[in-house]
Structures are given as structure tokens and as C-alpha cells.
């Protein structure tokens, strides 16, 4: 024994020396880095032999080639290879700020089409007075809306007519194509004769393709095409002040700039040739295209129409001029701005242009007579009759030509330099303003002008101020942002709603907006809303235009934010204003507008209550004027149901009544949305509220017989959601009614219909009243014939839905029916299909067990599973593995005859060259180990253990982890004594693996080692355990909590097994190391050892260590004590008197950390011994803790406050209150502050108990302070 002991001592000493050398304990003052984190010893245990590059492998000749060939088939290490590497700018690990527009689909981008309409009249403030003519009232908006509709319809009619005309003409035109093309070219030239020579000369000298030399002298056609960009309105006239492209600010609104952005390359837009150079354009124009016919149809100089060879390809220029050349637009079959978006993605810049342009169009519309009357004085002016020959020019292109050029002929003129303009380098923002992005210049450019503030009018100054604050919020640093936000909030009413929203809202429509920026701006709106309250009314619609798109954003938080704003808005503005603002949008021609409006209305309903909105909804849903209004109204109901869930229950009947007539609407879309709304209502109300749906049952069930296609799908969906609400009897009846249709629709080729049918079948089947026999006889045959086909496995959603439905059916009809039908398919040749079968079997079997399965089916099942398991090529979701595990576990002992075969498969696959296969085989062992034990196949398991043991040299960490897991499962099941290989051989093999830094390996390894230390420590020599202890210290640093916890527990087991002394010596020595994390982990380990081996085995050595005059060691000891008392709890009462002198000393130490750690030790100690009669020692400790209350270092004061809290629990609040009373009204504020803080936490902790201990106060002349009730005595 003695010899053994000294051997162990030597061993420990040697390893300690090694450690010391390795760690080279540095003096306290010197700075050392966490070397073992940064040096490459962390890769110990990782394979180092993978060739770094191709050449190396080739040099080694055949062997290397072989090796490489083997490597190439490895599928496992992909996760290692594909570690997301930093690509320069994004190495912070954070997501790069992303522009919203980049992730939006086309539909969502339609938000940019909407115009921020002018402010509207607020009837509440104006009262009885007639609103000013300049203010838009509700009536105006409604009128405009109606006009817009008419216009749209007219344009549609025109387009249609033209289409017809064109088709009529085609034949004739085709015959005369060539001459017509020539003629048209000639005619085109007629309208700008000056062009004639230019264009031909330009065509000759093809080299002059750049912008700055050709177009300024020759306002070529291409140039005119580009002009309608708003940023260039000034340039449209060929004035001499034309700016050079090169020195302009890069505003995003410039079409020219869009060339520079990569987005310009998007399909649908023809980027080249439009703005840049006139020449290629002329070339295009010169080539006769069939499209040329159109310019004959109308005399408008239809330059860009002919520039597009195909109507499907929208040139940007064409896209931007719809309003200006309406006829040309019709010609292109893109008559409205709204329709443009259907043609393919556009760059944000283009969107911006479009928006700008429509804004300008709105403002620059011709003045009406009334407006002119209002503008001019009545006297001194006379209205002249226009000459009879005058015909107004409607097309701006001609208007431009009509402008007299200054010199007659547009020769080259030296462009005048604008000295005030910005060059490429962004100007330094004045006054500490944050950096401006190029696209911000458009909004914040004014801030860069150096004009004197005093010269500005107060209004302008206010505007400036708002802009500054907004810029700070948008681009500033967090502190800047915070103050700016607060200022905006505080001064909101002072700034006024108008100026604020006029600045904020356009920013939100900025196409290049990023998520973060939008979030901030939305926050601004939210804050400002609170302050402005009813002042917000005229701007409700404006705000809605920018906020509504948030409701359909793909980002969940954006949706929540949008809802919050709209909800606040409706509370601020009131229901009447909200309805007035949104009513015109309800029958907007644009589906996008209606959709977002419906969603916004549902938010209003949830904010102001459904009953408030009911009358309005009723009216809208019965609108006779347009089906769009009815559609939107019903959609609002649907959205309300989705948004509010079961909160619709009180109003369910009225909501259903409002929409029920929609089921028989003449419009198909209205019928569809009605059915969908009913589905949403039923889903929200489930499982209640069937009586509210009584009135729609008949139309629904009648409807499914008369409808087809989309409408039928919607009706079925509604039925599917209503049936689960019914009583069993009715459910059965209605299910049978609908089943006929469902079975018919099983064959539908429509994907959407398939999904809905599957879902409805699932809902019907799961209802109580539907009998198993009925399902078995009437549904199953058709169901399996139509749905259990390979194609269904290819689409992920179909796959999921089919599995779900089948599982639901199995719950009714039992395992055997379902599994029997699909088991053969486990051997199907399509792998996705096999996987679907396997997943279904897994779910069915784990739901219902395998007792239904007879011997024949069992054989088929195992056979199929083995086949599917072996044949799989890729299984990322572990479907096959899970299925195998589930079936084997369900069959239990019945699996015994098949086990040799299964194990054979596993062994064979453990030897596979693909890492994935090996890993899966090992995982399978851990799944079926329990069943193998049930089947008494211990010998087989022992055999598997040996095989696994041989594979411990595995190179791939994922596989190694699984192998360790499998070993652990086997050890757990057959026990330490029967394990083969014997534990004494197994454990030394595990010690080096503990060095592996891969999480999965670490976790499985430490679990296995911990299990052995717990149950079979005696099989392994103490020396080996010591070696493991050293490895475990490193593992205390693991990132995963599970690993750290397992490690600490293992420490406990080992200490228990070999006695605490040796382990403790190691640990105490470890306190001297430099690295903090290591020391912290060591203190935890010491505390664990103390807990498992009783504190008295550890405390003496630990307290002795405190005498070492080294800061780290003493603090380590104190920290160990803190953890120790935390773990041992009330056992602390035996040791409190022993440690009190030590704590006393620590609490008086000059070092802050000493006092901090000692205070936390006191806390745990006090909490542990509360109520165990140690008050004397605790009061003594309190006297040492108390002077520390004036500490300012946050950690120290925190620890001290917690210690006092702990002592309050142990000593009762009275003691602490008495300590407190001396300082609550101290003359020095600093003292009072601290004492009140202590008093407050005391008060919160023991409010009621304090009543008995408050000091007695004497009454004053007017005030009663005494508490006479407490004097009562019986």
C-alpha cells in the first residue's frame, strides 16, 4: 500500500512538473495571454495528415493517390470544410446590414409605387366651417379614386381595342413590312429635322459613343429618352447650364447612375444604350423592326417605343414615362405605372425615379381655371380667348422641341461650371453630423449648404433642425441617436405634425433603406405619435402608405412593428379618421393596396375593438358599387380572425353574418375569399362556436357540388376547419357528404388543391364521429392509389402534409392497415419516396406501438427497413436512422431473430469508407442497445463493444463522437463487470481522446468517463485516474455547459474513488496558474470534491492554502469557499465557526477582490445556515461586511449588497433594519443614498415582517406618526 502510494506521489509530482514547465507560471505583474487557447495545442487529437494541397499528395505517389481517392468519398467532414469563412468585410460574425429592397419580392416592392398623398382635412378641428379649397377632403379623395378607376378602365378598354386592331392589321402589315419600316423611319425623322444630319453623322462616326461629347451638342434621341428623370427636369431644355455628368452629386434618383449599379443588369431593363450613348441607340433605331408600325398609328414622336424590340422587355426610359406619353405607353402594353412592375425587377434607383416622377406629375399638373382665378387679382387682367387654330400639346416630348433653342442650331456650348456643387468626395458634414450616404443627399443635402442659419426663415430653420435630428437618428452613433430621438419626441408638438411627417415619411420610402434604418425611423414615428395625438389626423393616410407595407414584410419583427404603429395611430386619430383615411383604398384598383389596407383594418379592429368596426364592415361587405370593396371587406374579416385568434369568439356570429352572403356572390374572387375567411374564423374559434356557422353550412356544402377549381379548394378548406368544431354525430354526417367530393378531387393535378384535400382529409379523419370502418373501406383505397406515389415525395410541403395525414388516418384505423399498405414501398427504387415511407412508419409505430403487426408483416418490415437503411445515399435529417430505431424499439423482444443480421449490417457499415455511414452505424447501436439487452444478446453486444473499441482511432470527430456514444450505450446496458473490452483496457484508451477539442467528442467522452468513474472506478488504477484529472482540468474551459457540468461531476466521482487528497493537491496547485478561467474552473472542482467527499476532507488543506501570500491563490481559496458553501447548503452549520476567522481576515483585506469574494462566501454561508442557530457567527460576520457598503466598484458593492441580503434571510430583517436606521437620515447625501438603497432591498424582501420593527415615531402638531394599535394589550 505504502509503495503504491509513493508511486502515485511520484506520478503526480512528475506530471505536475510537466505542467509547470508547460504553463511556466509567470509573475503576477507580467501579462500573459491564454496560451493554450491561442497556441495550436488545441488541435491535439485532430488529424494532421490531411494533405494541404494537391501537390503534396501527388508527390507521394500511389499511396497518396489511394489515400486521396479514399478521402474524396468522405462525406463527413463537409461541416469542417465549409466553415463559414470571413470574406473580408464581414468578420465580426454579425449580419451585414441589408437593404430591405434586396430581399423583397416583386409584390412587396409595389409599396414603392404608392404616392405619399397630400395631407387631408381634419373635420374634427375645422368643425362646421367649410374646408379651404386647397385642403383635400374625404370627398376629394373619393372623387379622385373614382376618376382613377375610370381612367384605368378606359385605358384597359383602349388597350384591348388596340390589341384587336393590331391583330387585324397584322396580316396586312406583314405583307408590307419592309417598305413600311423605311417609311416610318423617314417620318420619324420629320419631327426633328435638325436631327437628321446629326443622327446620320453620328451613325458614321461610331467611335463618339460617350456621353459628354456627343449629346450636349446633339440632343439625340437617346438623350430625350432619358430626360424624364426628375433629377433632370432642368436639363430637359437644351440650356447652356447643362451640367456635366462627371461632376454631379451621385444622387440615387439619377438614371445615369443606375448604370453604375450592378442592379441595372437585371433582366427586363435594358441598361445599355439608354442614357449613356446616343449612337448605339441610333443604330437600333435604324434597323427596321416590326414594332415601327406603331409610330404610324399615331403621330407622336414615339422614340422609346421603337427602341424596345419586344413589348415584354421594358426599357427604363419607357417605364418612366407612362404619364407623359400615355399613348406610347398604351402602345407598349404597359399603360400604367402599376403594371410596369410586372415586367421584372428594377433597381431601387429606378423605383425612386418612378416615384419622383409621379410626384412631380402630381404637382405640375396644369392649373385649372379656378386656381388661376384664385391666383391673379380680379382687376387689371383679362381672360383672352385662345386662337381658334390652337391645339394644346399634350406630349411633352414635342413640348420640349417646341421650346426655342437659344442659338437656333444646338451647337456645342461649354457647360457652365457650377461651383457650388459637390464632387465625388462627400463633403464633411458640418456641426458633428453623422456621415451621409450618397443616397441621403437627396433628403439631407440641404444640411451641407453653408448658408447662415440667421438668413433662413423660422420655418426653414425648423425644417433644418428636424432634418439634423433625423439624420442623427438614421446614421448616428447610439448616443447621438438616443439624444436625437429624445429631442424629436420632446419637441414633437413644437415642430408640428406637418413638418415632421413631411421629412420622416419620404425617408421611409427611400428605396435603399436598410432594416436597421427603417426600424429607427419607425421608432421615431411611434414616439412622435404619442406626443402629437390628435394632431396626427391629417397625416393618417400618409403614414399608412409607408407603414402598411410593414404588415406584409417577411421579417416577423417588422410586422409586429407595423402593427404597433397602426394600432397607436388608430388610438391617436380615432376610428372615424381611420375609416375616412382608408375607405378610398378599399376599392382601389391595385390589389396590393387593397391587400395592405385589409391588413391595416384588422389591426385597427384589434386596437379599437371589433364591435366598433362591425357597422362599417357590414356596409363594406354589402357594397353594391364594386366587387373589390366586398372582397376587401371580407378579407378584413379574415385578417381579423388571423390576427386576433380566439378573441373573435364573442363576435363570431356577427362576423359570420357579415360575410355569409359572399358565398353566393356573383364574383368568383369574392366567393373564394369568403370561404377562406370562414376557414380563418373557424380556425380561430376552434374548438368552440359551431352554432355561429349554422347559417353557412348549407351554402358551403351546396357550394362544393357546384364549384370547381380555386373556389372549390377554398370551400373545402372552410369545411375542413368547420368539421372539427361539430359534435360527433354531425361531423360524421358532414364528413360523408364532403368525402365524395374529396375523393373525386384526389385525382386533381393542381398542387394547391392536393394540399388542401390532404389537409381536409386529415381534419375530417381526426374528428370523433368518423368511424374506422368507413375510413378503411371508403377512403383508404383511393387515398393510397392517388397520393402514395413517388411524385408526392419530391415537393417538401406535399411530403409533410401527406405524412401528417397518413399518420392521422393511422391513429384511427391502426398500425397494421397503414404499414401493411406501404411496407412494400420501403424497397421502392426512388430514395425520397422510401424516405417518406420510412418517416410515416416511424411516426405511426412510435405513436401506436407494434403490437398490431403480425409475424408476416414484421418480417416484411424488418426486411424493408434493412433494405432502405442500406440503400440510402444521403440522409441529412436522420429519417432512416430514426425510423430504424423506432421500429426496433417498438418491436422489442420480437426483434431477436433479426439481431444477428442487423449487427452484421452495422459491422459492415462501421467499416465503410464514407464517414457519414460509419457515424450512422454507430448512432444506430446507441439507439438499439436497450432492445439488444431485452433480447439477452449480451454476447453480441460484447462483440460490438470490441469492434467499437477498435474503431477508437477514428479520424473524423463526428464519427468518433458517435462511436463513443455507442460505447456509452453498451456500457450503460450491460454494466461495468460484463463489459468487453474490460474497463481497465477501455479507459486508458479514452484518456488521450479527452484532449480532443471537438464538442461532440468531448461530450460523449466525458459522459463515458464519468459513467465509468461513477460505477466502475475500481477497475482502473489510481494513476490512470490522476492522469484523467489533469485532462479534465482543461475540459472545464469547454464552451458547452453540458460538458463543463459533466466534467465537474466526474471530478467528484474520481475524488470519491481514489480519495480527495491527491485530487485536491492537483487542484490546489492549479490555483497558481496564470489563466483566470482555469483558476475559476479549479475552484468549482474543489468545491465539488468537497461536496462529494465531505467538507472536512478538503477544508483543512484549503484553509491552509490561504496562508500562501499570493493574491491569486488566496482569492482562489475564497472563491472555492464560496462555491463550497453554495453546494453544501445547510451542512455549512458545522463549518461556519471554523471558517469565520478566515473570512474575518479576508473582509478586512486591503484588496478589493478579497473582500468581494469573501462577501459572496458570506452570502452563501448565511443562506445555507439560515434557521440553524448560527446567528452569533453571522452577526460577527455582518459587522465585518457592513463597512464595505460604501464601496463604489460595481462588482464589490454588488457582492456586499447580496451578502447583506443573505444575512437578512438568516438573521431576520430587524437586525438589518437596526443597522440601517443610523444612516437613513444622515446629514451627508452620499451616506443617505447608500442606506436608502439597503433599506429599499430590505423593504422589498421583507415588507410585512418589518411592520413589527419600525421605530416608534412621536406625533407632531398636525400629524399622527405613532401606531397606537401596536400598544393594545389584552
Amino acid at each position, binding site marked *: 500500500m505504502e509503495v503504491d502510494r509513493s508511486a502515485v506521489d511520484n506520478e503526480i509530482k512528475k506530471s505536475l512538473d510537466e505542467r509547470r514547465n508547460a504553463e511556466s507560471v509567470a509573475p503576477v505583474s507580467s501579462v500573459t495571454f491564454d496560451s493554450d487557447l491561442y497556441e495550436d495545442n488545441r488541435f491535439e487529437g485532430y488529424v494532421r495528415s490531411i494533405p494541404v494541397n494537391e501537390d503534396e499528395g501527388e508527390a507521394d505517389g500511389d499511396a497518396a493517390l489511394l489515400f486521396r481517392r479514399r478521402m474524396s468519398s468522405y462525406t463527413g467532414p463537409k461541416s469542417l470544410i465549409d466553415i463559414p469563412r470571413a470574406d473580408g468585410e464581414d468578420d465580426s460574425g454579425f449580419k451585414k446590414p441589408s437593404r430591405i429592397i434586396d430581399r423583397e419580392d416583386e409584390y412587396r416592392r409595389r409599396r414603392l409605387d404608392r404616392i405619399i398623398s397630400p395631407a387631408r382635412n381634419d373635420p374634427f378641428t375645422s368643425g362646421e366651417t367649410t374646408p379651404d379649397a386647397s385642403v383635400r377632403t374625404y370627398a376629394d379623395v373619393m372623387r379622385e379614386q373614382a376618376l382613377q378607376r375610370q381612367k384605368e378602365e378606359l385605358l384597359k378598354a383602349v388597350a384591348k381595342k388596340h390589341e384587336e386592331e393590331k391583330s387585324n392589321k397584322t396580316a396586312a402589315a406583314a405583307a408590307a413590312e419592309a417598305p413600311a419600316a423605311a417609311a416610318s423611319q423617314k417620318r420619324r425623322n420629320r419631327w426633328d429635322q435638325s436631327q437628321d444630319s446629326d443622327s446620320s453623322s453620328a451613325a458614321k462616326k461610331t467611335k463618339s459613343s460617350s456621353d459628354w461629347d456627343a449629346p450636349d451638342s446633339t440632343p439625340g434621341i437617346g438623350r430625350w429618352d432619358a430626360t424624364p428623370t426628375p433629377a433632370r427636369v432642368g436639363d430637359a431644355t437644351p440650356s447652356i447650364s447643362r451640367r456635366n455628368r462627371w461632376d454631379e452629386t451621385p444622387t440615387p434618383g439619377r438614371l445615369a447612375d443606375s448604370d453604375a449599379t450592378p442592379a441595372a443588369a437585371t433582366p427586363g431593363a435594358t441598361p445599355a444604350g439608354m442614357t449613356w450613348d446616343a449612337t448605339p441607340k441610333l443604330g437600333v433605331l435604324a434597323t427596321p423592326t416590326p414594332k415601327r408600325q406603331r409610330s404610324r398609328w399615331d403621330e407622336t414622336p414615339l422614340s422609346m417605343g421603337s427602341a424596345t424590340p419586344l413589348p415584354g422587355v421594358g426599357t427604363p426610359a419607357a417605364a418612366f414615362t407612362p404619364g407623359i406619353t400615355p399613348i406610347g405607353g398604351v402602345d407598349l402594353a404597359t399603360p400604367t405605372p402599376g403594371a410596369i412592375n410586372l415586367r421584372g425587377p428594377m433597381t431601387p434607383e429606378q423605383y425612386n425615379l418612378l416615384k419622383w416622377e409621379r410626384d412631380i406629375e402630381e404637382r405640375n399638373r396644369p392649373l385649372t381655371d379656378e386656381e388661376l382665378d384664385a391666383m391673379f387679382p380680379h382687376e387689371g387682367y383679362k381672360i383672352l380667348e385662345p386662337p381658334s387654330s390652337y391645339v394644346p400639346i399634350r406630349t411633352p416630348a414635342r413640348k420640349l422641341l417646341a421650346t426655342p433653342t437659344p442659338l437656333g442650331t444646338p451647337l456645342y456650348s461649354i457647360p457652365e461650371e457650377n461651383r457650388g456643387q459637390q464632387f465625388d468626395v462627400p463633403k464633411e458634414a458640418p456641426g458633428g453630423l453623422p456621415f451621409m450616404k450618397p443616397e441621403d443627399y437627396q433628403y439631407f443635402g440641404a444640411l451641407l449648404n453653408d448658408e447662415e442659419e440667421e438668413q433662413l426663415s423660422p420655418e426653414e430653420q425648423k425644417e433644418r433642425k428636424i432634418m439634423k435630428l433625423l439624420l442623427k437618428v438614421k446614421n448616428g452613433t447610439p448616443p447621438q441617436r438616443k439624444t436625437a430621438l429624445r429631442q424629436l419626441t420632446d419637441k414633437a408638438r413644437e415642430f408640428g405634425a406637418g413638418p415632421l411627417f413631411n421629412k420622416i415619411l419620404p425617408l421611409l420610402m427611400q428605396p435603399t433603406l436598410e432594416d436597421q434604418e427603417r426600424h429607427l425611423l419607425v421608432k421615431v414615428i411611434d414616439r412622435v405619435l404619442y406626443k402629437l395625438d390628435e394632431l396626427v389626423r391629417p397625416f393618417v393616410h400618409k403614414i399608412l402608405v409607408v407603414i402598411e407595407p410593414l404588415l406584409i414584410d417577411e421579417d416577423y419583427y417588422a410586422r409586429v412593428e407595423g402593427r404597433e404603429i397602426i394600432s397607436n395611430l388608430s388610438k391617436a386619430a380615432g376610428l372615424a379618421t381611420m375609416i375616412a383615411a382608408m375607405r378610398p383604398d378599399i376599392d382601389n384598383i391595385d390589389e396590393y393596396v387593397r391587400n395592405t389596407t385589409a391588413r391595416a383594418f384588422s389591426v385597427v379592429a384589434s386596437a379599437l375593438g371589433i364591435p366598433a368596426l362591425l357597422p362599417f364592415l357590414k356596409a363594406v361587405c354589402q357594397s353594391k358599387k364594386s366587387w373589390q370593396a366586398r372582397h376587401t371587406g371580407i378579407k378584413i374579416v379574415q385578417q381579423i380572425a388571423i390576427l386576433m385568434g380566439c378573441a373573435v369568439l364573442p363576435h363570431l356570429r356577427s362576423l359570420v353574418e357579415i360575410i355569409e352572403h359572399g358565398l353566393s356572390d356573383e364574383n368568383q374572387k369574392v366567393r373564394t375569399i369568403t370561404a377562406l375567411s370562414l376557414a380563418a374564423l373557424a380556425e380561430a374559434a376552434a374548438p368552440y362556436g359551431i352554432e355561429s356557422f349554422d347559417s353557412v353550412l348549407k351554402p358551403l356544402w351546396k357550394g362544393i357540388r357546384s364549384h370547381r377549381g380555386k373556389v372549390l379548394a377554398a370551400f373545402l378548406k372552410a369545411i375542413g376547419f368547420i368539421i372539427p368544431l361539430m359534435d360527433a354525430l354531425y361531423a360524421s354526417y358532414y364528413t360523408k357528404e364532403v368525402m365524395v367530393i374529396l375523393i373525386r378531387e384526389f385525382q386533381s393535378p393542381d398542387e394547391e388543391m392536393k394540399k388542401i384535400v390532404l389537409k381536409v382529409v386529415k381534419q375530417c379523419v381526426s374528428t370523433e364521429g368518423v368511424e374506422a370502418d368507413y375510413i378503411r373501406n371508403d377512403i383508404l383505397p383511393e387515398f393510397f392509389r392517388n397520393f402514395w406515389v413517388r411524385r408526392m415525395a419530391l415537393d417538401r410541403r406535399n411530403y409533410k402534409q401527406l405524412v401528417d395525414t397518413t399518420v392521422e388516418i393511422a391513429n384511427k384505423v391502426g398500425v397494421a392497415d397503414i404499414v401493411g399498405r406501404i411496407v412494400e414501398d420501403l424497397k421502392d427504387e426512388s430514395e425520397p419516396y422510401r424516405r417518406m415511407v420510412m418517416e410515416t412508419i416511424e411516426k405511426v409505430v412510435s405513436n401506436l406501438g407494434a403490437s398490431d403487426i403480425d409475424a408476416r408483416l414484421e418480417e416484411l418490415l424488418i426486411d424493408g427497413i434493412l433494405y432502405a437503411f442500406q440503400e440510402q445515399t444521403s440522409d441529412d435529417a436522420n429519417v432512416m436512422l430514426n425510423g430504424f430505431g423506432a421500429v426496433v424499439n417498438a418491436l422489442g423482444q420480437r426483434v431477436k431473430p433479426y439481431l444477428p443480421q442487423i449487427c452484421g449490417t452495422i459491422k459492415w457499415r462501421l467499416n465503410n469508407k464514407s464517414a457519414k455511414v460509419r457515424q450512422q452505424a454507430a448512432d444506430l447501436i446507441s439507439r438499439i442497445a436497450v432492445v439488444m439487452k431485452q433480447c439477452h444478446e449480451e454476447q453480441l453486444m460484447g462483440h460490438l463493444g470490441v469492434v467499437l473499441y477498435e474503431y477508437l482511432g477514428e479520424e473524423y470527430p463526428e464519427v468518433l463522437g458517435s462511436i463513443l456514444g455507442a460505447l456509452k450505450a453498451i456500457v450503460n446496458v450491460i454494466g461495468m463487470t460484463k463489459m468487453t473490452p474490460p474497463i481497465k483496457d477501455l479507459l486508458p484508451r479514452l484518456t488521450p481522446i479527452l484532449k480532443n477539442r471537438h464538442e461532440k467528442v468531448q461530450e460523449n467522452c466525458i459522459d463515458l468517463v464519468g459513467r465509468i468513474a461513477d460505477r466502475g472506478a475500481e477497475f482502473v488504477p489510481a494513476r490512470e485516474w490522476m492522469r484523467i484529472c489533469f485532462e479534465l482540468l482543461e475540459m472545464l474551459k469547454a464552451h458547452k455547459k453540458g460538458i463543463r457540468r459533466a466534467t465537474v461531476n466526474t471530478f467528484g466521482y474520481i475524488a470519491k474513488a481514489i480519495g480527495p487528497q491527491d485530487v485536491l493537491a492537483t487542484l490546489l496547485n492549479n490555483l497558481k496558474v496564470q489563466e483566470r478561467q482555469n483558476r475559476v474552473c479549479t475552484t468549482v472542482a474543489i468545491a465539488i470534491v468537497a461536496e462529494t467527499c465531505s467538507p472536512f476532507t478538503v477544508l483543512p488543506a484549503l484553509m491552509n492554502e490561504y496562508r500562501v501570500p499570493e493574491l491569486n491563490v488566496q482569492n482562489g481559496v475564497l472563491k472555492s469557499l464560496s462555491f463550497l458553501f453554495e453546494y453544501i447548503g445547510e451542512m455549512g452549520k458545522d463549518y461556519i465557526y471554523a471558517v469565520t476567522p478566515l473570512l474575518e481576515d479576508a473582509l478586512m483585506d486591503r484588496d478589493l477582490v478579497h473582500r468581494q469574494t469573501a462577501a459572496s462566501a458570506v452570502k452563501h454561508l448565511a443562506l445555507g445556515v439560515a434557521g440553524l442557530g448560527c446567528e452569533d457567527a453571522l452577526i460577527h460576520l455582518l459587522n465585518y461586511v457592513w463597512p464595505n457598503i460604501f464601496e463604489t466598484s460595481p462588482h464589490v458593492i454588488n457582492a456586499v449588497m447580496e451578502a447583506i441580503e443573505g444575512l437578512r434571510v438568516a438573521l431576520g430583517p430587524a437586525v438589518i433594519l437596526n443597522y440601517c436606521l443610523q444612516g437613513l437620515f444622515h446629514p451627508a447625501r452620499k451616506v443617505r443614498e447608500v442606506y436608502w438603497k439597503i433599506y429599499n432591498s430590505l423593504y422589498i424582501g421583507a415588507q410585512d415582517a418589518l411592520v413589527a420593527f419600525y421605530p416608534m415615531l412621536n406625533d407632531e402638531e398636525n400629524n399622527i406618526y405613532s401606531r397606537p*394599535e401596536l400598544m393594545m394589550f389584552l
Partner: protein
Amino acid sequence: MQVSDRFNINSQLEHLQAKHVGTGHSDVNRFEWAVNIQRDSYASYVGHYPMLAYFAIAENESIGRERYNFMQKMLLPCGLPPEKEDD
């Protein structure tokens, strides 16, 4: 409060404390503290039925009456606040 204190755990602690009615701060005067003490006391009497019963016997009142009285006293337990001294 120091700048460094503004964002640490202690400020959170004070924030948490400030959320409870009845906690105090360095500028609390005698009257305010006494009002809190009185209200806490009455709340405690009302909350502990045995206490109520004890007071009821001592005052020869019904328990309900006692409870009502205590609740009423919570309204202005110490009378009107004293005039602010100008300082």
C-alpha cells in the same frame, strides 16, 4: 450617481427598487417615510386575520368594522402633509 454607475447592475437594482411603492430615496422626509410605515402597518393588520381578530377584541368592534377602519385610515394615515419649509 457617477457616470460609471449609470449603466451597471446597480442602477438596475435602483430602478427595480423604484418600481415598488413604499421604497424611499435620499430625499425622503420624515412625513413621507412615516406615511409608508403607517400604510404598511395597516395593510399588514388587514392581511393577517389573527391580528384583526386581536384588535377587534381589544377595541370591542366587529372584525369587519376593524378592517373597514384600517382601510379608511390608509387614505391619510398621518394627516395632511406639513407645509414645505423653504430651504
